[in-house]
């Protein structure tokens, strides 16, 4: 390309796009210019002065992180003057930095350690007393140790610019400057921990992780967060079969380094003392721990008995189980139990959207689209609460590309702060109020529409018609609640369609009908808690539950199998945008088994064959057999995300859209799972509320 700018860095000819900063141009050329305060994607600070470089024809050292490249520029990063400057800066930084590295959480992955090692002096000339300020706890998950702070303002920026929360600021001046939380001595915020993650030193530490381990003692397992539907990659730090922290410092996955409270801290339900670790069998009205063999025999015996007399089965699946488990479960239900009475708690009308988009290409948005497309319309969702990562993407899009954001929500949402147009509506009136946006939207070059659970059934078709009438490229996201809500639908945990939305000849009972039916002989609930709010009409039904905890539903069960959490198994999940990603088990909890294995063991016990219960084998079947899932395998295998393709067929849409209900989880709730997370329950903000005026 001819519009590239030519410059020389350390004698290497470098080409860079106009506007590229010298620090990044050098990085492209494989030359490191050290920095603390410079951080990709956030405003420039030029505060740490680590990136000083020599530029020919300029007498003073120049700041590499704010200096754009210029034609013919000659930059030197490897001169005595530059080394001297870096040495001086590290020395200044260490004057008040307590050298408590042996007990600091950051030890081993601390940028100041690395910089000192590479550019520092090796000896201290500082004889004076260091400043001391006592450590402060700002929230159950955020601690601040001022003496370690090097005031790079990354935390302030990530909270303000990245999260849109603005919970951190700076007080005082000079050497006694200090980062402060928004409520004098404590934080009220998203508790996302981004400030801790981005801190180059151990000044901000995590309540969950502090003083627990050294980073090199952990096994780092990249998997997908099991809470909301956004599908963020979280890298679990596991030591001795215990998850000690979650972060995504390596920026892998669709979310880069982003994680919310749930992804970063709410893995702790895994180690809840209430976890089931043995199968339970009801004897004399009491659930008693029994061996797997005994429990499996009891279930297989009961199932075969009911089968033999032509009894009525029903199955309720989960929003959290893997695609493989969902596929396997519905195969079991349809092939072994011979029933279409299978459903899950539906949280968004994916089926109708796929139906309405049949024949259209490029109509399903990815999470990357939210960062790249020029205009975004959010309908009926408090994204910052319900889909924190999508909200983060949109904020970044606004910040970096000036995207036009429109909101149409039943109450105030964070996106309003930077929306070009915001309309407050009442549920049910969305489509009517949408007309007010028709003209401005027509003027946009392209659009992504995200819609929540109040757009369902016919309304989805009307929304797509509205989108088409704008005569611009429109992509859609049907917002669903949990980590594999989308997969549950795609895998056919539905009474009226099988995997890939293949219609079934005789639709079975839907979720509420299953609970209301008086003549069920057996109900199998896998990873769901329908009896939390509902009641089971069939008082005499045999109830089998796979769950991690003794939920309301498990308490009613005749047999309970202890299930493994998403962090303990392999498989794939499909996020809200239809992106398929790989789960990687990081640990094992004694006594629990993945649902896939439990289903397989029951099948074997019954003498039935639904295939090998290895997630890889089942995924092969999904890949070759389920419409939309013919996705590039290497992408998944290497930890990437591949979006499912549209199905382009007549999708059997639900006749009962009223069944589609979001659980309206906030940042601090996560269905039944959230109840068992200490971290989620510990924060001041829990459980929070949607569309709240009070929140940022």
């Amino acid at each position, binding site marked *: 390309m001819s519009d590239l700018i030519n410059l020389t860095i350390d004698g290497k000819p470098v080409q860079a796009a106009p506007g590229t900063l010298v620090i990044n141009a050098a990085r492209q050329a494989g030359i490191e210019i050290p920095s603390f305060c410079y951080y990709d994607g956030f405003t*420039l*600070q*030029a*505060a*740490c*002065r*680590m990136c*000083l470089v020599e530029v020919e024809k300029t007498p*003073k*050292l120049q700041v590499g992180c*704010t200096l754009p490249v210029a034609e013919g520029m000659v930059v030197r990063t490897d001169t005595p003057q530059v080394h*001297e*400057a870096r040495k*001086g*800066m590290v*020395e*200044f*930084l260490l*004057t*008040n930095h307590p050298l408590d590295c042996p007990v600091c959480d950051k030890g081993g992955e601390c940028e100041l350690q690395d910089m000192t090692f590479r550019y520092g002096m090796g000896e201290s*000339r*500082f*004889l*004076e*007393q260091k*400043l001391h300020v006592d450590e402060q706890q700002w929230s159950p998950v955020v601690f601040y140790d001022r003496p370690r702070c*090097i*005031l790079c303002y990354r935390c302030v920026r990530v909270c303000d610019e990245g999260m849109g929360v603005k919970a951190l600021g*700076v007080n*005082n*001046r*000079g*050497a*006694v*400057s200090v980062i402060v939380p928004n409520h004098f001595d404590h934080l009220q915020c998203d508790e996302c921990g981004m400030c801790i993650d981005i801190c180059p030193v151990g000044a901000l530490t995590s309540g969950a992780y502090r003083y627990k381990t050294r980073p090199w003692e952990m096994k780092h397992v990249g998997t997908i967060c099991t809470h909301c539907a956004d599908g963020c990659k979280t890298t679990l730090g596991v030591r001795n079969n215990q998850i000690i922290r979650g972060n995504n410092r390596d920026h892998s996955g669709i979310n880069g380094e982003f994680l919310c409270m749930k992804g970063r801290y709410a893995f702790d339900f895994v180690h809840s003392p209430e976890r089931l670790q043995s199968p339970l069998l009801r004897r004399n009205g009491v659930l008693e721990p029994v061996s797997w063999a005994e429990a499996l025999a009891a279930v297989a015996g009961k199932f075969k008995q009911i089968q033999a007399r032509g009894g009525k089965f029903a199955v309720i699946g989960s929003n959290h189980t893997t695609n493989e488990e969902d596929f396997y479960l519905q195969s079991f239900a349809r092939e072994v139990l011979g029933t279409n009475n299978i459903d899950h708690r539906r949280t968004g009308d994916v089926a109708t959207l796929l139906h309405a988009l049949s024949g259209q290409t490029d109509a399903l948005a990815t999470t990357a689209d939210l960062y790249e497309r020029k205009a975004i319309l959010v309908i009926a969702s408090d994204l910052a609460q319900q889909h924190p990562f999508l909200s983060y993407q949109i904020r970044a899009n606004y910040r970096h590309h000036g995207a036009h954001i429109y909101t149409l929500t039943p109450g105030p949402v964070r996106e309003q702060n930077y929306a070009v147009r915001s309309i407050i509506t009442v549920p049910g009136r969305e489509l009517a109020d949408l007309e007010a946006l028709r003209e401005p939207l027509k003027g946009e070059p392209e659009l992504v529409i995200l819609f929540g659970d109040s757009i369902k059934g016919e309304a989805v078709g009307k929304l797509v018609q509205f989108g088409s009438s704008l005569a611009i490229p429109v992509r859609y996201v049907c917002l669903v609640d949990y980590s594999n809500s989308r997969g549950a639908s795609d895998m056919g945990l539905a009474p009226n369609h099988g995997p890939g939305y293949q219609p079934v000849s005789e639709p079975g009972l839907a979720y509420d009908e299953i609970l209301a039916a008086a003549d069920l002989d057996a109900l199998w609930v896998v990873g769901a808690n329908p009896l939390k709010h509902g009641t089971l009409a069939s008082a005499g039904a045999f109830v089998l539950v796979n769950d991690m905890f003794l939920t309301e539903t498990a308490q009613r069960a005749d047999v309970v199998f202890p299930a493994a959490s998403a962090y303990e198994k392999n498989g794939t999940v499909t996020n809200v945008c239809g992106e398929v990603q790989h789960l990687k088990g990081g640990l094992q909890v004694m006594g629990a088994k993945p649902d896939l294995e439990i289903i397989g063991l029951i099948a074997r016990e019954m003498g039935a064959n639904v295939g090998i219960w290895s997630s890889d084998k089942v995924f092969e079947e999904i890949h070759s057999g389920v419409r939309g899932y013919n996705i590039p395998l290497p992408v998944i295998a290497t930890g990437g995300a591949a979006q499912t393709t549209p199905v382009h067929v007549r999708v059997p849409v639900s006749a009962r859209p009223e069944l589609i209900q979001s659980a309206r989880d906030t940042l601090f709730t996560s269905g039944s799972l959230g109840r068992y997370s200490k971290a989620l329950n510990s924060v001041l903000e829990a459980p929070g509320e949607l569309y709240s005026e009070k929140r940022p």
Partner: protein
Amino acid sequence: MLYNEPSPLEVKVVTKRFGLPNSASLDTYLATDGFKAFFKAAGMTPEQIIEEVKVSALRGRGGAGFPTGLKWSFVPRTSPKPKYVIVNADESEPGTCKDRLLMENDPHQLIEGILIAGRAVDAHKGYIYIRGEYRYLIEHMDRAIAEAYARGYLGKNIQGTGFDFDVYTHSGAGAYECGEETALLDSIEGKRGIPRMKPPFPAVVGAWQSPTLLNNVETLCAIPAIIRDGGAAFAALGTPKNGGTRMICLSGHVNKPGVYELPVGFNLLRMIYEVGGGLPNGKKLKAVVPGGSSCPLLKADECDIAMDFDTLAKAKSMLGSGGTVILNEDTCMVKFALRIMKFYAHESCGWCIPCREGTAWLKKMLDRFHSGLGQKSDIPLIGELSKNMLGRTFCPLGDAAAMPTIAIVEKFPEDFEAHLNGNPCPYAHANEPAYA
């Protein structure tokens, strides 16, 4: 009021009304050529006004000495955004105390200067950012502004010229850093006073993202005389490229401390002995801070020098903001360096590492050194740390702390040596410190 007797050697341009009865009143101002320049400027094009200022060779009186006319010409007059004139009255440099006198004794001269600047850059709003410690001056300035409004010298259609202009005062909150022009802008916008990245320069992107002309009080006070009597007449008062007069704030070990208006280029020794009446008690001169605490000191034998920007720059010092501090032979230079560093460590905004950590470290080290606990290796270290700050900080505050310190260590090593080996300060007996 005046704090010192005027000197016969003074050339009074901006201080010509000082000492007149009711010098701060509009009536006095009008009776002594007040607003004549404004009416003249009303008949001139902005280009003509700026040209006149260029001809005057007026250079910024805040310390950096940037040519004022050139600065004015940088403001994009055709920008669709509103333009602002902001007066930097955050006079905080130790040793400098001239702007307060100008506002106290002749506030309308400043208002007229602002109006002419506004006319030259097509601004219609002006802010006077007054140092927080000058509380009484804010009220004083407000009274003068109210008087100007009442008599039609501010507001809509000023004196029928069709020119609208509003002036407001804005209080600082006690931060030296806010005298740095971009930190001042942040402060005036209600933010924490920390400097901004340059470019863009305030002339293009200043207050509220709009083109902004920022000038020191003394600079703007010189404008009425320049427009009224012509730039050439003003330029002729000084040396080439250093037009006009300068208010020199003479303090320290001198018989007649005070603020004197002298032509730019006035000889420093004459300033000390003829204007200031020499040093008290027949003490010998040891050193001079030529223009405020951030300027490298001149040793006694370097003081036969013309006080203009270029000559002092050649002597590796600065004319700065006109705060000339005279130090006699009994001055402990270690303590003096400590006193300066205490100030900068206290005033560092903390934004960038070298200034924040460097000033604090040097303050601690000089404190220890002066108390007799110094090591021989500290002497070069003081210089090295200062050089690690010099030119590497975000704004000139770090340089301001480093430059005098480097000069003191280089020029007075014997004072440092004398404190070694647990020796008490050799000047401990001396009274009358030039600093506190």
